């Protein structure tokens, strides 16, 4: 950061602080002074608020915990400090008051965030889970979601890939939808993206898991709701925090490929098995180094990865305020280099800025606040998808016999251009030099996100709050890509340099109005809330591409204007569809002596995504709680059972995460042109049009209905906490583009139909205690189980079919959604070892079983399920699926004097991962093998697991359980050891000076033999667990500091 920008920050902070200091003065007679200290350690409390009850203004304690205030005798001083119980002290004779505050340990009075409000935790009747901001921040993940892994039972979080800046797949209580399983993210009351938030800015994350809790968000809440609250200011002295870390990353696990000698031996064996002779290797000139004559032996995997890729983060924060005005300002920078190819191939940078402020006006009659945040991120990336879009894929297939560099250009000087790299050898025409592929194309996406969120809360009478909030979320992004001319193989080449540029701008405006009122009738406490919300989104896109960069042929100058191919290129401009939503909602709560409680909500949502007459949906919920420990008959257990609450809830929520205008039957001009006459070129096309999809005006909401039963309990003086939930979730009226019979002639219409049930349990346990004065510890464990079953898909065959050509050329369908099975199950042949000799094959056939054409000893034995003598689709069965049935996590933290230690483990079990040795089994006979294939079958009794090698293999080109492995794993996600020097330094102005070391992703216990069993990729939205060998997760060693002034 430059000096200039530092000065600017200081100025801003100063201004904000000055504003907060503008406190009113009270007229009084007597000057009172004193100190405020903590009862725990007798240390002074800095920044505690001291006010005269009923009067305006007040003061805060200084560095020594001292305060001075004027008050009349008989008045009462109110002393408060965050995390401590507020104390009232009557002003009597003494003019020096020493006040001791007790820490607020009663977690029962903790509040949790719920939809459009907060609620005391002990009164919650739904299933929610909260993660504190500090627990998120201390894990130092680039994305808050990653920190939630293993800590929030029922929330399954899988990263899509290990690439910097890549997203996370979040599934709450099982997959319920075929269109989107992503929860709704609400940031400080308005919808937003959690990816854009600096994890250090987070105060708390609350996940609404059951329908009753989420139903207040109606049609957006079918996949659960994640409520993120960012840090606001605190009354008291300004506090400055500075958090920084730097880390070094490397691949946690790389896959081993064959070296040149092993490769040649296996290729020879494969040729002999296919009826040819061994190869005459000396015939292939280009597999030898032109100068030394040595055989090339390239470790492509090794060349693709970069060790010690740097990740770093810096966050500076200031917060404070007075009794009428609080503020929090933070500034953050985060960057992560990719471990594949380093920062030039994949990289992520993010800058964050946030100001949260709140002012009380007119004797607290009106509260006005604003949260303004800016996130700017720059991402460079490589392909991480299926076999056609996976930059690492080439490294598995390319033979070690190809050199990286052409002999005459051994320097790595020219990483930008492909020409310095070798091209395909005369041995293998598909060898594509994956390293050049990594550096050849350059791209950068640049995103800016402004969120401004202002609110006013009016309290005209006691307990009535009327709040209006206007949220403006503005996104703009640009993308630029450049590819030089290159030739790698006969099929992988480009003759002219190309450039493309895209720009997007869009905004969402959300206006929320709520009124809440609390009242009591004797022992009955009631609260009511009604509200409405309107949301509007729209955006514009421009995109262009062109060729021939001529004298501007480099990444830095790759802009559309510099492309000299004047008569061509594409330039597109199009709108992002205008989306609108209007919602009305209400909630009523009843609570009798904190013993019985009942909440009910109702929401009505209207969406522009549906046709007139089907726009509105109603989403009700009801939930109840019974705190048994409040009952008289439970007195006897009070000694060991502090608290026991039984909860039950039911609700309905909806999902409309679909494209716009899907109900309509559109007529398109796109691609309907035809080139009459002579000559070629897009400019010669005559415009045409056609109706491309059938309409369905009846299209309506997808609905999810869920019942939840659970309990929360605390034992043994609050040391042991237990939470348990059971749920049954049924999602129905999926929005499906069910295949229609081809003779209908246009793309199928979207219809409602199909349902899926998710049943599961969640258990959370935690134990927290001290041993002596210096040692405190806590242990937590949680586990979630979910079972998913599809029913009633509204297609003739009851199936939503999966994609093809994902793992190898000509791959047929191998996963699907089908009635009676889990969503996205693997569909293929069951195998039963390998045929060891011809006799076994003959016996197998004699027993009435089929084999694939060409089956020989060493090939896989496919189970002929229906014993009809043929191996075909009728023999394909459910082989499991890629979504874990069990998710679990452990955490442990120890504090001894100034030391702190913590560790988080997370794991998953009960799922399968498909991995075909990262090989293109279709048309890739000469591709390299992983070392797994050293255990192949080479004769009777040598292997019953890895088939023989042969050209045009049949064992692997027919999808079977040969591909599938258990993905069960337990990961040491984080280990941290810290030491706080502030006590040693013992300066009043320094309240924390912690230095820590951390290892992320230290080790993964698993039997899975691929790079990483956490595989989010699945091509279709409802599929996971297809390991095409994409970007693995890094192991990170980092060191950091936390400073608080």
């Amino acid at each position, binding site marked *: 950061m430059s000096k200039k920008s530092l000065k600017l920050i200081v100025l801003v902070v100063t201004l904000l602080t000055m504003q907060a200091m503008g406190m009113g003065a009270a007229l009084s007679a007597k000057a009172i002074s004193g100190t405020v200290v903590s009862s725990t350690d007798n240390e002074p409390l800095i920044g505690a608020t001291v006010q005269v009850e009923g009067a305006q203004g007040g003061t805060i304690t200084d560095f020594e915990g001292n305060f001075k205030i004027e008050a009349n005798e008989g008045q009462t001083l109110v002393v408060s400090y965050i995390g401590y119980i507020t104390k009232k002290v009557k002003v009597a004779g003494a003019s020096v008051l020493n006040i001791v505050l007790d820490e607020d340990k009663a977690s029962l009075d903790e509040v949790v965030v719920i939809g459009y409000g907060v609620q005391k935790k002990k009164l919650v009747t739904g299933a929610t889970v909260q993660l504190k901001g500090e627990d998120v921040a201390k894990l130092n993940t680039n994305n808050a979601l990653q920190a939630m892994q293993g800590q929030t039972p029922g929330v399954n979080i899988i990263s899509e890939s290990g690439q910097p800046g890549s997203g996370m797949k979040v599934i709450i209580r099982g997959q319920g939808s075929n269109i989107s399983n992503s929860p709704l993210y609400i940031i400080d009351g308005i919808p937003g993206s959690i990816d854009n938030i600096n994890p250090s800015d987070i105060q708390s994350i609350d996940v609404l898991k059951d329908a009753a809790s989420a139903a207040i968000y109606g049609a957006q809440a079918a996949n659960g709701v994640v409520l993120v609250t960012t840090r606001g200011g605190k009354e008291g002295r300004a506090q400055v925090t500075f958090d920084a870390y730097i880390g070094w990353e490397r691949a946690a696990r790389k896959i081993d490929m064959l070296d040149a000698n092993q490769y040649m031996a296996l290729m020879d064996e494969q040729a002999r098995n*296919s*009826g040819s002779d061994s190869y005459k290797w000396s015939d292939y000139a280009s597999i030898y180094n032109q100068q030394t004559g040595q055989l090339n032996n390239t470790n492509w995997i090794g060349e693709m990865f970069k060790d010690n890729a740097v990740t770093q983060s810096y966050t500076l924060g200031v917060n404070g305020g007075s009794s009428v005005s609080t503020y929090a300002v933070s500034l953050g920078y985060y960057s992560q280099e990719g471990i594949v190819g380093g920062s030039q191939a994949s990289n992520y940078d993010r800058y964050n800025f946030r100001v949260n402020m709140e002012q009380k006006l007119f004797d607290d009659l009106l509260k006005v606040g604003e949260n303004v945040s800016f996130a700017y991120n720059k991402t460079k990336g490589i392909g991480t998808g299926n076999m056609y879009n996976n930059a690492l894929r080439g490294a598995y297939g390319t033979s070690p016999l190809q050199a990286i560099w052409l002999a005459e250009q051994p320097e790595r000087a020219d990483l930008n251009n492909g020409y310095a790299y070798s091209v395909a050898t005369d041995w*293998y025409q598909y060898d594509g030099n994956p390293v050049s592929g990594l550096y050849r194309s350059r791209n950068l996406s640049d995103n800016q996100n402004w969120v401004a969120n202002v609110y006013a809360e009016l309290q*005209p*009478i006691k307990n*009535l709050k*009327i709040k209006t909030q206007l949220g403006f979320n503005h996104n703009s992004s640009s993308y630029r890509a450049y590819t030089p001319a290159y030739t790698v193989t006969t099929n992988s080449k480009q*003759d002219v340099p*190309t450039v493309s540029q895209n720009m997007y701008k869009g905004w969402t405006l959300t*206006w929320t*109005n709520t*009124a809440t009122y609390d009242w009591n009738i004797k022992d009955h406490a009631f609260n009511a809330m*009604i509200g*409405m919300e*309107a949301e509007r989104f729209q955006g514009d896109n421009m995109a262009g591409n062109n*060729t021939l960069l001529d004298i501007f042929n480099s990444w830095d100058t790759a802009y559309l204007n510099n492309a000299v191919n004047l*008569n061509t*290129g*594409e330039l597109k401009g199009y709108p992002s*569809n205008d989306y*609108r939503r209007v919602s009305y909602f209400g909630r009523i709560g009843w609570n009798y002596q904190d013993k019985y409680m009942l909440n009910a909500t109702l929401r009505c949502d209207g969406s522009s995504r549906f046709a007139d007459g089907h726009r509105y949906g109603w989403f009700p919920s009801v939930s109840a709680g019974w705190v048994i420990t409040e009952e008289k008959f439970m007195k006897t257990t009070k000694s060991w059972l502090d608290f026991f609450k039984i909860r039950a809830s039911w609700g309905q929520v909806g999902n409309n995460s679909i494209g*716009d*205008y899907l109900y*309509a*039957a*559109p*007529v398109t001009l796109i*691609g*309907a*042109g*035809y*080139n*009459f006459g002579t000559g*070629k*070129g*897009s*400019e*010669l*096309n*005559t*415009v*045409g*049009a*056609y109706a491309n999809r059938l*309409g369905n005006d009846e299209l309506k909401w997808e609905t999810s209905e869920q019942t939840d039963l659970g309990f929360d309990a605390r034992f043994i003086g609050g040391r042991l906490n237990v939470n348990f939930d059971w749920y049954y979730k049924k999602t129905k009226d999926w929005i499906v583009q069910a*295949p*229609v019979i*081809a*003779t*209908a*002639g*246009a793309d199928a219409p979207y219809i409602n139909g199909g349902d899926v049930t998710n049943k599961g349990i969640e258990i959370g346990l935690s134990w927290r205690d001290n041993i002596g004065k210096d040692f405190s510890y806590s242990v937590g464990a949680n586990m979630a189980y979910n079972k998913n079953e599809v029913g009633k898909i509204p297609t*003739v065959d009851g199936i939503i079919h999966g994609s093809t050509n994902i793992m190898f*050329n000509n791959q047929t369908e191998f996963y699907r959604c089908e009635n009676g099975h889990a969503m996205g199950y693997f569909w293929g042949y069951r195998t039963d070892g390998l045929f060891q000799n011809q006799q076994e094959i003959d016996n197998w056939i004699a027993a009435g079983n089929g084999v694939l054409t060409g089956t020989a000893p060493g090939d896989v034995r496919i189970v002929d399920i229906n014993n009809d003598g043929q191996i*075909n*689709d009728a023999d394909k069965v459910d082989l499991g699926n890629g979504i874990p049935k069990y998710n679990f996590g452990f955490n442990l933290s120890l504090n001894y004097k100034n030391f702190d230690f913590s560790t988080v483990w997370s794991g998953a079990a009960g799922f399968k991962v498909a991995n075909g040795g990262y090989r293109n*089994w279709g*048309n890739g006979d*000469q591709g390299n093998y992983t070392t797994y294939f050293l255990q192949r079958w080479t004769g009777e009794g040598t292997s019953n697991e890895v088939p023989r090698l042969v*050209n045009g293999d049949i064992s692997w080109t027919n999808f079977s359980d040969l591909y599938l492995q258990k993905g069960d794993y337990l990961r040491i996600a984080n280990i941290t050891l810290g030491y706080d020097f502030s006590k040693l330094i013992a300066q009043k102005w320094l309240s924390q000076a912690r230095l820590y070391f951390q290892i992320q992703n230290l080790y993964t216990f698993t039997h899975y033999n691929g790079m990483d069993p956490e595989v989010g990729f699945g091509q279709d939205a409802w599929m996971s667990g297809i390991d095409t060998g994409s970007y693995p997760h890094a192991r990170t060693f980092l060191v950091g500091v936390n400073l608080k002034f």
Partner: protein
Amino acid sequence: MNKKKINIIALGVAGLMMVGCSESFLETTSKTDLNSTSFYQNEVQAKYAVVGCYDGYQRTVSNGSWPTLFQAVETMSDDCLGGGGPDDRSDRLMDRFDRSYMPDQIDLFNGLWGDYYKGIYRCNELIGSIDKISWSSDDTRNTIEGEARAIRALEYFDLVRMFERVPLLTAASTDVVPQSEPDAIYEQIVADLKFAADNMPADQYKDKSANLGRITKYAAAAMLARVYLFYDGVYNNNAGGTMPGGLTKAQALQYCEDVISSQNYSLEQEFKNLWPAACTEASTKEEGRKTTYVEASNEIVWVVKFNNDQNWNNDNINGNRFVINLGLRNVTSYAPYGNGWGACPVTPYANSLFRSGDSRSTATVINCTDIGAYKEQITTDCMDYTGLVNKKYCPLIFTDGTSMPAAETTVDGGNMQTNQDQNWILIRYADVLLMAAELGSSNAQQYFNQVRDRAFGAGVNNIGAAPTREQIWQERRLEFMGEGIRYFDLRRQGMDAFVAAQMGQANANGIAGGNPITIYNNKVATTISDTYVENNIRAKRGFFQIPYSQITLSGNIYTQNAGWE
């Protein structure tokens, strides 16, 4: 609660409810798509829609559904083997009519089937709206209706020839329509083509430089003769009777004679100039194409146009996607002959049929020995390799290996797979001449000799009497080899002839039980004639597999073709 408080609450509630009550807030419409209820209303829209119909037929090739009709019928004909790479088992499945090559491939033709019905839907929507539109003239109406009906007829003719019993829809419907018997389908084909041939203005689209690709009344007339001959051969034992739709042999002949007497068409002087690979020299990218190719030849009666503006991402679905399958498998050292996937290798027997002096021989087949390329290891992963490659639809490259259309395209991301732009000629004038001769024209001998004259030089190898049917069939095989025509010509010669030719294609003399030819699979020399099993071929009667997905979607109302169960 006092009154004041109630008032305040009431005010707050009213304030909340006032907001966003208006229903119009939720009323948004697409800014990029039209709506089908407001389309097909006027002549301008009809002109757009008829272009959409042409695009619909083009998409049966450009959409990327594999295989295309062209590749399927070339592979399944006796002129070609399967070829491709080791994993392209469907190539061999089709060539041998043997499902065991890829037993889980039960939807081989699903994409193609769907593409055809999408094309038919576009035609049906337009044809069904013709009466609602107020036309500026009858000629405009007849032209547009004629084009749409001719395209629909072609689509049903392709379907009925591939699948035989297919659902017949002449108006858009989402209902399951059971398969029709072939006669009903032919009746519709004849009615549509007759409308076009009888009503379209004679001079419409005469200027080829602007209208190449447009369907004229003569294109429809020629297609009627082709329909007649196919029906007569397959369903009527070539007896020459009246076919469904009331089309007689005499009418079919008359339609051919109309084409000939219109004098709009003539044979291209040099046969090779119809085929880019046959008339283009090797050249560098800087030099550009050196070619004598005549795109808008007067010989062309009906052609499907393609364009070079498709890449993997854009919506210009205009490329010829079958060409790339036929190219030399993965070699780029033999410019101008381009690289591709090595499908449809020509059989040595078919190549041996050309007599010396026949200029069609070198325009039809690339003999890899001649270009110095024939080695068994020309590529390492080639199947059914014979060293003989289709030249008529071979992709082209410059000397540096760059695909010509990919180098010429103005669209970003050009590549050899999507950018191929060679037009697919459906009917040439030579075909009209030979059909007229076969239908018994009094000028049969002269028509036949016109074709011979162009092939061998004027007067060389002329015949002195009216040609026999067998002579015409043999001449057609040579004239149209590699154009997607042979398979259907073979089918109309009767089931026994069809089976015999199939069984013999991998033998040196072309007949079953002959001397097997040597081919190379993965560089390994082998013979394959025993992979052709008579039962597999005869049982299927030359028809394709109905896609299982469609049978399922119909609730098993569709039934599978014999031999494909």
